[in-house]
């Protein structure tokens, strides 16, 4: 088709899915935070980068390998998220979105600057865990085991998060608390603590994506800054705050980007924004968003 073999096309679609799983995981965290806290978390990219660095430190300073990092790094960075929420973000509740955006944007610049100053810009190597090296020849492409693992694992995490928020009692409390915090508090539920933990969980999702990315990319201070704009576009296209919307759009845009890389690679860094423009013109609330 258009001078591209079907083989190559399938390969690119699969790769798109792999990239999409990163977009989905990151935009999921953003959507959770926006949905529950009404904060546009611009520090998300920096926290994703901290997740990757955390994995690196755990390996080189504490001897904890990839599998340990997969559990520990989200917990550690999530705890940092809790501190950020308690010391800074909680004072912004009830204010315009803009304040949260500015605060977290400044925070991201500071965190990235500090890491860059200490570790330089080229980053550090992080090896693929032994169990996941090598790959499968699928006939139409060579699929590294590690990438297959990334897709499967992030799908599980995404669906799990969606399930908790949409289908459990805890999720029901959360959704109720965003609609009417006063009423939920009157029922004896500690709303501020719930909000703090939600932010921590959103941050942990970002850190988890960071650990997943560490063996693929270099562990670099700017790895989050490069990605965050795309992820924001994903969230906006999906509909701000829509959980399922951000997951589906994440995978979808990964595919769109993958296809662009075959047909017109020069545009691969801009195609997502073209999609965003078109979607916003046609459907201002995003694909899955409810209009305000």
């Amino acid at each position: 088709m258009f001078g591209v073999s079907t083989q190559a096309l399938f390969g690119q679609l699969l790769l798109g899915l792999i990239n999409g799983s990163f977009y989905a995981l990151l935009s999921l965290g953003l959507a959770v935070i926006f949905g529950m806290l009404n904060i546009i978390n611009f520090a998300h990219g920096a926290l994703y980068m901290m997740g990757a660095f955390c994995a690196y430190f755990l390996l080189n300073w504490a001897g904890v390998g990839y599998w340990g990092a997969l559990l520990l790094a989200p917990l550690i960075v999530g705890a940092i998220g809790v501190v950020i929420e308690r010391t800074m973000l909680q004072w912004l509740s009830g204010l315009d979105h803009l304040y949260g955006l500015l605060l977290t944007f400044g925070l991201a610049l500071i965190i990235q600057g500090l890491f860059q100053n200490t570790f330089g810009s080229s980053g550090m190597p992080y090896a693929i865990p032994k169990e996941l090296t090598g790959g499968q020849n699928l006939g139409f492409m060579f699929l590294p085991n590690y990438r297959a693992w990334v897709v499967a694992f992030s799908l599980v995490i995404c669906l799990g998060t969606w399930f908790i928020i949409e289908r459990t009692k805890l999720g029901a409390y959360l959704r109720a608390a965003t609609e009417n915090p006063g009423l939920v508090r009157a029922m004896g539920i500690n709303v501020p603590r719930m909000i703090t933990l939600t932010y921590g969980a959103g941050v942990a999702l970002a850190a988890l994506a960071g650990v997943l990315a560490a063996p693929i990319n270099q562990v670099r201070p700017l790895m989050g800054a490069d990605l965050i704009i795309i992820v924001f576009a994903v969230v906006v296209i999906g509909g701000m705050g829509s959980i399922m919307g951000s997951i589906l759009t994440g995978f979808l845009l990964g595919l769109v980007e993958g296809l662009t890389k075959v047909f017109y690679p020069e545009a691969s860094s801009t195609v997502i924004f073209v999609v965003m423009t078109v979607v916003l013109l046609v459907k201002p609330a995003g694909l899955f968003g409810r209009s305000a």
Partner: protein
Amino acid sequence: MKKLHAISWAALLLCASGAAFAQDKNVKIGNLNDMSSLYADLGGPGSTLAAQMAIEDSGLTAKGWKIEVIGADHQNKPDIGSNIARQWYDVDKVDVIVDTPNSGVALAVAAVTKDKNGVFINSGAASSDLTGKACTPNTVHWTYDTYALANTTGKAVVKAGGDSWFFLTADYAFGHALERDTEAVVLANSGKVLGKVRHPLNTSDFSSFLLQAQSSKAKIVGLANAGGDTTNSIKQASEFGITSGGQKLAALLLFITDVHALGLNVAQGLSFTESFYWDMNDQTRAFADRFSKRMKNGAKPSMVQAGVYAGVLHYLKALEALGGNPHDGAKVVAKMKEMPTDDPLFGKGQIRADGRKIHPVYLFEVKKPSESKGPWDYYKLIATTPANEAFRPLAESECPLVKK
């Protein structure tokens, strides 16, 4: 009355000529660089340090000269770079701009420098156009260029049997120039190019491009990119089984900071071209020791930073020979071309009429982890291309400054 008039005119003339003969020994050096993105480690603040060390080693400050160096971040954008250059020349009275990686920015700054009659000693940018069709009487291109890279790595790879190529090219002036120069070498040595793909600058995911390279069945995947783009493509190439599947990577431009970032496990066996390595001889080691002691992360100098040091040193020598007055850039560069170069890092050499600095260029291979004795012990010397063969011959030059 008439007599008084004549005397005052004579006095005025004397004053004026006196001012013209007074020697201005204030020099301001601007290091225009990528301070925060994918090229920051190979140039960046390390280049400012290299320029500072050149000032100290020139011994001019002890002779009463006032020389200072300032730095700025061009963010890899030609418009930002040329704006800073213009402001530096007009407002801050900068006399010479050094380094400036990113060929897009460098070509823009070269044009501004010519307009303002400043001096541009480029070390970090690669495009051979800087001393080719875009050459100016104000530009010196010090360390390396795409022609030398293609001529050394490209030729070596084709001669070793790598006769079919697929290019992975950074989509801007540098990548295009490197691809063009390497393709010419491949074709001239009866190889062929099976395909190419152009990726945006600063891409983190190369899997799609690598897949295309893989399905092309080319023996060699030529990486016409640099810095973080190269490290990411090398890392992901090994992940996608490109190298284990029998295809070979040719990193057309690789810096020691990239090898350090990749780690020897991933980088071992890569061969590539550089014009400087810190562990070549006693002089380069002594410089590297002093340099890394002053770097925050203890890094050894890259060839780009070495080029900044050597370029500034030679510039200051030329200024001293002129007795000062750094403000007529074309005159200073003419003096730099007239004097033979000699510095501890690149040895003896010269700057040609087109602004190209000439020295030997080396083909290195990255050591295996078992061969390396510690951090920064990374390279094995494979071959040396002599100075007169490494760079584009003047006879083939498109530079208008070259008389034919």
